[in-house]
């Protein structure tokens, strides 16, 4: 059975790119644009892994992670952001991986594979 990914990314084009590329990589992808929609999805269905941006309108990625941890402790989370510096925010330690956005999606794909196969 295909593994289920939830992508939280507020940039429309990036969201589209992630959906296409990760679907091609063999995952079943749900992509949403903000933290609240992500939480609704997490309450509705079980994901194998969540990839989230940090800076988004509304709740940011770190607030989102805190709330995911209250709902589903065991789901692996990858932070995918343009900023190196959030690594120093202690809440990002709760995530399983921190991938800085790059023009190649190889690192992100490799991390997902490493975490859930």
């Amino acid at each position, binding site marked *: 059975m295909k593994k289920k990914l939830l992508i939280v990314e*507020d*940039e429309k*084009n*990036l969201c*589209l*790119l992630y959906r*296409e*590329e990760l679907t091609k990589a063999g995952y079943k992808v749900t992509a949403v*644009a903000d933290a609240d929609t992500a939480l609704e999805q997490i309450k509705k269905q079980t994901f194998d892994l969540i990839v989230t941006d940090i*800076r988004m*309108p509304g709740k940011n990625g770190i607030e989102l992670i805190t709330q995911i941890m209250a709902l589903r402790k065991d789901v692996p989370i990858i932070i995918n952001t*343009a*900023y*190196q*510096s959030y690594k120093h925010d202690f809440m990002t330690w709760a995530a399983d991986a921190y991938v800085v*956005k*790059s*023009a*190649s*999606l190889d690192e992100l794909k490799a991390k997902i594979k490493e975490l859930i196969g």
Partner: protein
Amino acid sequence: MIERYNLFLHEFSQEASKELQLFSIIAQSFFQPFSLTDNLLVIMTALTAGPGLGFNRAMLFLTDGDSLKGEFWLGPASAEEAESIWRVLSTPGIGYPEIIEHNRSLLTSETDTLTKRVKKLSYPLYKEQALIPALTAAARQMILVRDARNEPAVDRRFIETIGTDEFLCIPLVSQKEVLGEIILDNSITRVPIGSRDIELASICGLYAGNYIYTAKLQKRIVDMKKVAAMGEMAMFVTHQLRNPLVTIGGFADQLLDPHTGEKKKKRNIQIIRSEIRRLERILLRLSQFLRIDVREKVAVDVRDMLNLVQDSVRARIAGRRITLDIEIEAGLRVLLCDPTHVGEAVRNVLDNAVDAVGDEGHIDLRAYRENSEWAVIAVQDTGKGIPEAVKEKIFDSFVSTKERGMGLGLAYVKRVVDACGGRIEIKSAEGRGTTFKLYFKTEPRERGTAP
């Protein structure tokens, strides 16, 4: 009953001793606009001027890295020069300010041979067995030299330069650092340096050390602020450029994939093109943000300035159910450092209003004279208002609530208004709308014109 006194004394009572007047003048000099050289000059003048401590000459060294470097040297170079200078300076009516002015002119003059001589001197501070003058600073002690030529602790070249056997060295220190050194002598009058001279000079030394320390800290703070601002800017650029780059890179990779169909290829090219345009917009906004500069203010007609702005906003709301009312007081002129940037700032505020209103609502743009000093350019909308949580942060650079916002708009507005010496007031209620008021100084009315 209360009595009030000016903190900055200009005249002293008859009982006030010479020393008290001297230290008052030095203390007051620290409140003059910040210039290290000028204020050190005041201290050096206090040490040498007749009404002050009355040393013949005063030499100043400042620490530069690990060495002590000659900075300036006040006083006459010879007995003849001394006579002429002191005659002028003892003329009745010549006071402290005149003497300081005189000394300042000496420093910039081409013929000040003393300063030229001392500028050639440089001593390593932390050498083993340092000689005077470096020894004074290294040991953080005052040293009185009585018979320099027969004293092995004094550097030979220094004796040649100073040309006298008796001088007093005072280290300039802060709690942790050695900041410089002052060397005083009476080479012209040959009056021996006494214990009262040493006591008073030590206080001047402490003042000077403390003052240099403060000046250095001040400079460090300014540097740190610059670095912090650059760091913030670098972080912003990283983020703003990275998102479009990731998108462009990803969709370009798909183009190279032989399995990608024609329709998708075309879509990808369109996405890439729009992201490249976005990059261009980001760079444009960024360069605009960095270019704001404080310039001489000019009086600008508000109506003229806002003409172009109105057109661009009208174009933006065309086709939506947004009404725009504009009321600009005729002949209203405000003082601005850069009308183009202010116009752009008003357009930013109006753009925000349009975004806040959405598809239906009302926007008011008004410009009027608030009172004799201030004019207001106000933008009021019936939009969604500013969320309470964001209110405090709205002027910070790179904070945005919009999906594609850069968080530069209001930071830009604030920088422009600040540069013009104006201020901003905001009233906002969530769900009911926002009013932005930009205050600018008005052009002063001609006397006798009716209000």
